[in-house]
Each structure stands twice: as structure tokens, then as C-alpha cells.
């Protein structure tokens, strides 16, 4: 699932799609945390809490990213990442 996210992040052109790939990666990490915690350290809860925390962060981050995308769209009338290469040397 993490690999899917990375692949999507690199290949997609639409910024929204890239955002979704990002979410995929985050969720993959969350699941990893939860699962590894369950199987390796069953007596402890840190991994669980960490995934909960990451979910919360992800929500905030998504909101922010969406806002950026909207603003970029307003400015450039475009959400194609390949054409948004103004930020270079």
C-alpha cells in the first residue's frame, strides 16, 4: 500500500491525485504502526496512540493541502504538476 502511494505520488499529474497518494502512504504507515504494535509488543499501546495521532495530523494536513491546491488553481487555472514549474532557479 505504501508502494502504491509512492508510485502514485511520482506518476500522477493531477495534484488532487497526488494528495490522495499521499493519504495512501500515511494510512499505510498507520496500519503498520498498529499491526506491528499488536504483534511485537502486545503489552504496550504506544503504536496505537501514534497511529491515532497520525490520523489527526493527516486530517489537518489534508485540509491545508486542499487549501493550497485551491489557491494554486486560482492563480494558475491549472492543477497539472508538470506545468507548475515556476519555482526553479
Amino acid at each position: 500500500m505504501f508502494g502504491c502511494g509512492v508510485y502514485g505520488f511520482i506518476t500522477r499529474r493531477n495534484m488532487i491525485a497526488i494528495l490522495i497518494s499521499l493519504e495512501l502512504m500515511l494510512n499505510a504507515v498507520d496500519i503498520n504502526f498498529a499491526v506491528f504494535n499488536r504483534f511485537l509488543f502486545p503489552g504496550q499501546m504506544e503504536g496505537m496512540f501514534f497511529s491515532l495521532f497520525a490520523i489527526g495530523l493527516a486530517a489537518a494536513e489534508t485540509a491545508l493541502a486542499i487549501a493550497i491546491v485551491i489557491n494554486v488553481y486560482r492563480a494558475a487555472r491549472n492543477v497539472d504538476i508538470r506545468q507548475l514549474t515556476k519555482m526553479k532557479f
Partner: protein
Amino acid sequence: MELSYTVAVLIIPVFMFLFLGIVGVKLSKKTAGILGTVAMGVTTIIAYAAALTYFFGTDQGQVIDGVRQQLTVLDLTWLEFTKNLVIKIGVLLDPISAMMLIVISTVSFMVHLYSLGYMDGERGFQRYYAFLSLFTFSMLGLVLATNIFQMYIFWELVGVSSYLLIGFYYTLPAAVSASKKAFIVTRFADLGFLIGILILSFYTDTFDFMSLTTDPQAAISTAGGATFLGCSVMTWALTLIFMGGAGKSAMFPLHIWLPDAMEGPTPVSALIHAATMVVAGVYLVARLFPLYAVDATALDIITVVGAFTAFYAAAVACVQSDIKRVLAFSTISQIAFMITSLGVASPELHHGVGYMASMFHLFTHAMFKALLFLCAGAIIHAVHSNEMSAMGGLRKYMPICHIAFLIGCLAIAGIPPFAGFFSKDEILVAAYANSPLWGVWMSVVAGMTAFYMFRLYYKIFWWNNPDYGHHTPHEAPMTMTFPLIFLGLVSIVAGFIPFGEFVTWNREEYVIHLDWTVAGTSIVIALIGIALATVMYRKENNIPERLADRFRGLWTAAYHRFYMDELYQFITHKIIFARISKPIAWFDRRIIDGTMDLLANVTNSASFAVRRMQSGSVQTYVWFYIVGAVAVAAITIICLI
């Protein structure tokens, strides 16, 4: 201790400096000036109270067995580096510092008052008063210092504030370069002072004046006969300290800043030349006099420098045409009198009268020189020129100023009963007691003093009547004439102060009795000088012209101050700048800067080479990132295995 209120004379001026400096621009000019003057008035009253309590009170243990004691009325430890290396801040009252309190506060108050009229309507009036307060503060701090380090701090503060005041008209290039010159020359001299302090305290383990001077023989012998270039290190230390004093006191060859310092406002010249700055050097030598007294070599150096400067400055003063310059050179000459007097004041000769004479002359000179400068200010104010050619016949227009100036001239020429007579007479007694050579030498200089002062007097107030046009000169306003009247009265009576009772080198009482052979000679010489000036300058005539033509070479040389400035110019520009500074600058620019430039250039071109990587496409960055992360992970794993 009760006398600890003396510290207020430092606090009030420094507070006024901060106050006027920070909120001064918000006040109206009048308020700022009056505030500054009132604060100075209060300071003066406190200074008088402290000095009079010190001299006449008995309840503080001021006098024990006929010897005036040195009282440390305030003693704070400021920095404690090690057990021995402690820097203190304090207030020391002893005869000379109490006397200086009176001199400085009186003259400074008069200058404050006078400036109300003189500086009326100038730009930066508030700034001017702030700087005046700073100047007074630093000078008072200098004289009240308990240790040589504190003195050095205030010494530098005096330098800074003189720089600020000389360059007060900072839009005039002449004023700017004059202030720079004053600062650099005195700084250069202070380098010697600092090295002297370091040597002195390295061997004696103390900065304190009291422990240095109570047993000078022991202090000198701590060096244990260490020598450097054929002289003992203590002689070097004392000579270097004197170099600092010579710089501030404008002794030859470090005098060049003082004539240029005339670019400042005239009341400032009065303050610099009468009460503050230039007497600092004399005061320094007087303060450390017990040390100098046991070191004959250092004393001889002082005497020679002083005597030569006195003659040189008097010779230059005889031909200058700018009235402030004449007064400037006369100041140099008179300060040199004081320095010489200290130099010839070996304790075994005539009860060390030279020390007392020097301080006495400092006191009287402060009064009449301030008077002369303030008069000059009033005259310049009236005719709007410094040149004597623009004056003449002013006695009808400015009667008060005329009388005051005449008193000042009589005082400086040494005619009884004016103040200068008594103090100069004591100096001559001391000089004759030391050696007839110095006696005759100083008598000649005294005669020249009388001549050039009366030349100045006649040129201003008699001579001819130039056409003043529709602008007739008139008497200055009350705030300006009052200081003239006051200082004039002081100049008449100051000579009758039994100064020997108050200030002597060993702080015991010394009764002045006039030696009429010396006094008579000096009066005759002064009268000859005056008579000569009267013949030459009373009425417009061509004697001066003819004389100048006869001795054209000498006259031109003296007019150009014997080319001292040109010599300095030559040394600094042709030798120091061209031969020393240029190579150093080349080394700095090519080698040191070159290395740094090389580093910067390499970095710059390297970054140009790799800037293509910043393509602006986010996904490329991600590729780099992933590859990097994988590489790091791979390396870690390899290392772990």
C-alpha cells in the same frame, strides 16, 4: 562620610547630558538652555560647598599635624579580576582636586550662562548643552578619580566630548577635520599614557593614587632596577604617562590639534582652554607628582618640553592674525608655563614651590583665559569675523568688553595686582631656584606674553577704525556680559588668595612671600613688552609692516607656525601612509581579502554548476529523495551486516 555628597557633582551633569540628549529636541531651545544652566549652577554650588568644607572644615580630619589629608569620600569596587587587579570607582578629595572642583565648576557655569546669549538661535542648541554637560562631567570625574584607571576612563571621555564640541558645526569641513585632528592626536598620545599605566601598575601592583604616592620611593623601587634602552622602566612609565598629558595639554610636538580646535563655538574654546581638557595634562603630572619628584630624568624631560613649548608658542602667537589663534597659542604657552613649573619643582629646591606655583597659575589662568576667550567670543559676535583686520577701534562700541579684555591682558602679562602676576611670579621663583637658565628663559617668554597680548589688545580696540558699514558693533546681551564682569573681578582678586596655604606638593602649609628681585624683574620685562606693543600697535602705522618685511623669512615661518603642520602632513602622508600603510593595505587587499574572495568564488561557481537540479518540478525532487533514502538505507544495512 559626610562629604560623600560630592558625588552629586558627577551625577547631575551626567543626568543632564542624558536628559538633554534624549528628550532635548522635544524641549524648546530656551527651556533646554535654562535647564542646563540651572543644573550647572546647582553643580557649582555643591562643588563649592565640598571644596570649602574640605579647605576650611576641621571635623572630617582634613588636616592632621598641619598636613592636609587625602580623603576618599566614596569608594566602590567596579571590577575585580584578581585579588590585586581591582578596578575601583571613587571620589578623592585632596587639595588639588578640591581646587579643580572650584575652577571647573566656575568656568563651566560661566560658559553655560554665556552660551545662552552666544548660541542663541543656533541649530542644535539642545545638543550643544547636552555636550557641555558631558564635557563638564568627564572633567569633574577626571579630577575626582581615586585611581589611575578611573582617570583614564574619564580622560578618554574628555577626549570624546571635546571631539563632539569641536565638531559641533558638523556641516563645516574645517570643523570636522579639526575635531578629527584633535581626537587622533590626543588618542595617539593616550597610547603612551596607556602603556605607561600598564608598566606602572605591572610593577607596583596597584592603580590607586594614594598607595602610589604615599611612598613614592618604594613604588619606584618595585621595578627592581629593570632597565629598557638605558633608562629605568619607571622613567619610561612616567615619561609615557607624561606623553599622554602632553597630548591633552598640547605640548610640543603634540600641540598641533589645539589651534585647529578653534573651529568649535567660542564658549567651547573657553571651556577647553581654561578649565578642562588642556589642564588635564598638568593635573595628571601634579597628581602623580610624588612619583615624578623622585625621578629626576622624567622631571628634566618635563622641564625641557615645557620650556621649549612656552617659547615656541609665544613666538607663534606674536604674528598670528586670527584672534582666537593668538589666544590658542597663548594658552599653549601658559600651559607650558605650568608644566615647566612642575618640572623645576624638585622638593629639595625652594620647598618645591614650583608645584604650588603651577597649581596657582592653573587656577588664575583658568579665570583670565576664560575671560579672554569669552571676550573674544563677544567681539566675534559683534563683528562676525575672527580676523584682526576686521576689528579696530572697538573700545567705543563695546566698553564692558574692552575693560574686561584689558583686565585679562594685564592679568596674563603679569602686572600687579592682577591674578597672573602672583602665580607667574611664583613660577619664575621656582625656575630661578632650579637653574638660572630656566629662570631667564621663562622671563623672556613672560615678556613675549605681555607683548603679544597687548598687540592683540591694541589691534582689537585701538589701531584704526575700519568701516563697519551700516552694521555698527554693539555690546553683547546681559547673559554674555555678566560672565565677563564676574570673571574680570575674579581675575583682579584671585592673586590675593593665599594659595600656599591650600595647595603644596607635600600638602603642608607654605607661606608665599614675594621675592622682589624676581618680581621686580618680571614686572619690568612685562612693562617692556607692553611698551613695545604700545609703540607698534597703539595707532595705525607701518612699523609692524616694516619689521615683518625686514625679517620676512622669520615672520613667514612663525606665521605658518614654523611649519609644524606641514611636517606632520609630510610624515603622515609621505612616510606613514606611503611607506607603511600602503604595503599593509596591499597585503590586506591581495592576500587576506584574496583568500576570502577565492573561497567565495569557488562556492559560487560550484553552486552555478549544480543549479540545474532545481528544476521546479516537485516530482523530480521526490525521485531524488527516494533514491537518496534507499541509498541511505542500503548503506546502513551494509554497515550493520
